């Protein structure tokens, strides 16, 4: 990348993440917040529709989830908090103001530690606050050719937590690592699914690039419309290069603006539209009394803190004793980790289990498009298979084939082995098969004797075929060498 090769610029990146909370009901009304599969406009009440005369009531669970998140991000929890009205006019915002938090958020001044390319970085968290989501919009064109937008109000009023970072990130890789670590924390806290594709975890980035020998200015570009970790990474890499090019052409600093990530072209596009004045005119929400976050309440919330992913990762590496890359892969997928934990509960070689999970299970799940909890081969089933291999009743090769059969058919390892037969380790039985292969393949034997050693491989294959893969491969090799030697 030009930017990395060119040491003449420094990059400043800050991220704003919006995460939907896993409450039962919405932020300020009793509609269900589990509306994902509901038909349009069926999870709506006068309050989240913004009808005249309605009033909000704070969902306590959403507040506690936000404070829990703040604590996990090493934030300070101020003694007082309040909600404010943020005024902006957009058709997906029912009241034309969003109930949010302005100067007294629930959590301030935290940090998140990440490691990128072996370097530890402490990234600042400015604040974590709570607000309400907007309605969803769909765009289309009708029979007469008129363009329209449609509103589905189900999402309106869903609880949304905003996590704002300091502009502490210097590379797209750091930004991606921050996001993945943050995602993991929210998942382990059970406060959000943090699923980016489903819109439960949305990221906007602020990025600016400055000559290394000059001052860092105030202008920045806001990048929106990124819906995967990969697109965040790609968008920031692109933007870094684009902004360097602006400087190089003598037109720096790049204009402050909002740009949208365009996945297909791999570029960001300016989102300049008709300019309407923006001024949020925040003021204290008169319909909601302020909140006092006393120590007893905060302590009570802190007591519910589960083991955080960073702590868990260290434990997996140092105490459980698996490789760092495996530990990371497990942490990044909590269902996979649960699978691992269940499997290792009754089995003494965690690394071996990790190998099987990160190699065979992940591949099979990927092919089937299934999640670990949906795996036809459960953790206990896998261990049963591993134990068959440990006792030499199946070979390593057989075990992998049996695993695939288990995954495809849902049958147990014992069942499959009972049908197929166990591994053949008996010297005489294998020798018989070897001799039969030699007899039936004189050409291969001649080739071998003429010095074409790869002909032995052909003979091994014949033996394995004849024994339906059950012959112990090491023995077969030994005996072919002995018979022909």
């Amino acid at each position: 990348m030009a930017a990395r090769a060119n040491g003449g610029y420094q990059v400043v990146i800050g991220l704003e993440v919006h995460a939907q909370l896993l409450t039962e009901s919405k932020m300020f009304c009793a509609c269900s917040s589990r509306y994902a599969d509901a038909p349009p406009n069926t999870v709506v009440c006068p309050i989240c529709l913004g009808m005249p005369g309605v009033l909000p009531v704070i969902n306590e669970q959403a507040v506690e989830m936000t404070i829990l998140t703040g604590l996990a991000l090493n934030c300070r929890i101020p003694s007082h908090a309040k909600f404010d009205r943020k005024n902006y006019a957009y058709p997906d915002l029912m009241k034309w103001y969003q109930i949010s938090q302005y100067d007294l958020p629930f959590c301030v001044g935290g940090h998140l530690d990440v490691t990128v390319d072996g370097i530890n970085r402490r990234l600042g968290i400015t604040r974590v606050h709570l607000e309400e989501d907007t309605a969803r919009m769909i765009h289309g064109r009708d029979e007469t050719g008129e363009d329209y937008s449609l509103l589905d109000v189900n999402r309106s009023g869903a609880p949304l937590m905003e996590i704002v970072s300091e502009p502490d990130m210097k590379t797209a890789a750091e930004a991606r690592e921050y996001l993945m670590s943050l995602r993991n924390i929210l998942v382990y806290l059970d406060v959000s699914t943090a699923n980016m594709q489903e819109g439960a975890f949305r990221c906007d980035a602020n990025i600016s690039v400055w000559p290394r020998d000059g001052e860092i200015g105030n202008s920045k570009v806001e990048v929106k419309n990124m819906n995967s970790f990969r697109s965040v990474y790609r968008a920031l890499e692109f933007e870094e290069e684009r902004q360097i090019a602006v400087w190089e052409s003598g037109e720096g600093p790049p204009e402050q603006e909002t740009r949208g990530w365009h996945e297909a072209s791999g570029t960001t596009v300016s989102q300049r539209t008709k300019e309407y004045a923006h001024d949020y005119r925040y003021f204290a929400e008169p319909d909601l009394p302020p909140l006092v976050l006393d120590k007893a309440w905060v302590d009570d919330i802190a007591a519910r803190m589960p083991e955080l992913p960073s702590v868990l990762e260290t434990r997996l590496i140092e105490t459980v004793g698996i490789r760092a890359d495996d530990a990371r892969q497990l942490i990044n997928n909590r269902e996979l980790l649960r699978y691992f934990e269940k499997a290792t509960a009754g089995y003494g070689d965690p690394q071996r289990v990790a190998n099987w999970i990160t190699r065979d299970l992940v591949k099979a799940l990927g092919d089937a498009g299934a999640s670990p909890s949906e795996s036809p081969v459960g953790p206990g089933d896998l261990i049963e298979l591993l134990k068959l291999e440990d006792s030499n009743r199946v070979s390593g090769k057989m075990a992998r084939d049996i695993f695939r059969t288990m995954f495809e058919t849902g049958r147990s390892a014992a069942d499959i082995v009972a049908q197929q037969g166990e591994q053949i380790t008996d010297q005489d039985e294998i020798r018989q098969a070897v001799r039969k292969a030699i007899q039936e393949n004189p050409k291969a034997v001649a080739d071998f004797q003429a010095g074409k050693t790869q002909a032995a491989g052909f003979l091994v294959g014949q033996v394995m075929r004849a024994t339906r893969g059950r012959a112990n491969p090491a023995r077969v090799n030994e005996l072919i060498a002995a018979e022909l030697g």
Partner: protein
Amino acid sequence: MLDRIDGVDARVRAYITLTPDLAMRQAAEADERLKHPDAPRLCGVPLALKDVLSTRNVKTTCGSKILGNFVPPFDATVVGMLRDAGAVTVGKTNMDEFAMGSSTENSGFFPTFNPWDLDRVPGGSSGGSAAAVAADECIAALGSDTGGSVRQPAALCGVVGMRPTYGRVSRYGLVAFASSLDQIGPITKDVKDCAILMQAISGHDALDSTSLRAEVPDYESSLHADVAGLKVGLPREYMAAGVDEGVRGVVLEAIDRLTEAGMEIVDISLPHTEYALATYYVIAPAEASANLARYNGVKYGYFDPDSDGVEELMMNSRGTGFGAEVKRRIMLGTFALSSGYYDAYYLRAQKVRTLIKRDFDRAFESVDLIATPTSPTVAFPVGEKVDDPISMYLSDVMTLPGPIAGIPGISVPCGFSEGLPVGLQFMAPPLGETVLLRAAYAYEQLAGVESATARKAV
């Protein structure tokens, strides 16, 4: 009652919507309930609702063209409470658009006229409710009071109007004007009815986060408690210039009579009174600018069909749907909150609000009640102030300070000036409704409920 409405409403124009079928149905149900001796006090009583209260399946316009066809799918909490009490609701009353005004001339549909003199305004913004009660077009009504919108029209129509303590009555379903000031209150023919209606609508509501949990006293029985020894403060600032001579005379005479019941009159000072008007006209429009933002022609209400694109549709719907006074206040409130002006206007007004509240706190350390005129004038002629916003705003100068401090107030008829009713206002500390009702009732007993119906024009 429906016949009476038929007879006079063409002249008074108190109602925007009449609900005779609903009323007949409720009356039939009430008749059943009245066969039981424990039927509630309001059972079968015909009431009117200001059209700012959300009524399920009944058009709720807020006096605005922008909600001209709006039919809510839910009842305001107070409407549900009245229904549970067996009340019969006859219709929705006219009002200044979104409760912004003091004469009901700002209704998006038509003005309402004062039953005492049909060439004069009934006050506002609950002018329809006050006129309906005064013209016997219902037994009692609900209004809403943000800066005096219950008490001022009650005074101008010669009836009783009460603004409860902020938080005493649920605001759920009251279409918001200024959220930190709005309260629903009763408008009745006498103080006893006021106590009965207060009983029916007071109490905590889980749907209103600003609703108070304090227990509701028995208002009706509190009427008869002794008032001897109550100290009544007479704030000198309220008797200063600006109050009509006639009104001043009638009110001072009424206050004098309180001593006959053993009350003690004390001169007091509320030094920041002169700042109340400006404080109110910054805070209320600021809150209103956000509360009225939702009317944009998307989900409900008037929309401009000829607009090009969604932005224009929303802006035009608002530009056409709102009346002049509403637009004026939205502009004022938006300005007061906008970047560069927030500190000088909105924040400063909130700070002065603190001073006004402290004035009352201090006053109530030495007195039980404060007595003032409700309005500086009697009902003024239709059209007199409609083009002069500031002089219209001054109509509420006696009633604005109370809401700024969140305290309750009541207006009772206390005589006539120029042949038109004059109101006496009492104010009390937060949750002082019982002492307000006691004092007002005592005054009413002293003065005798004026049987001046003969002087009315309808």
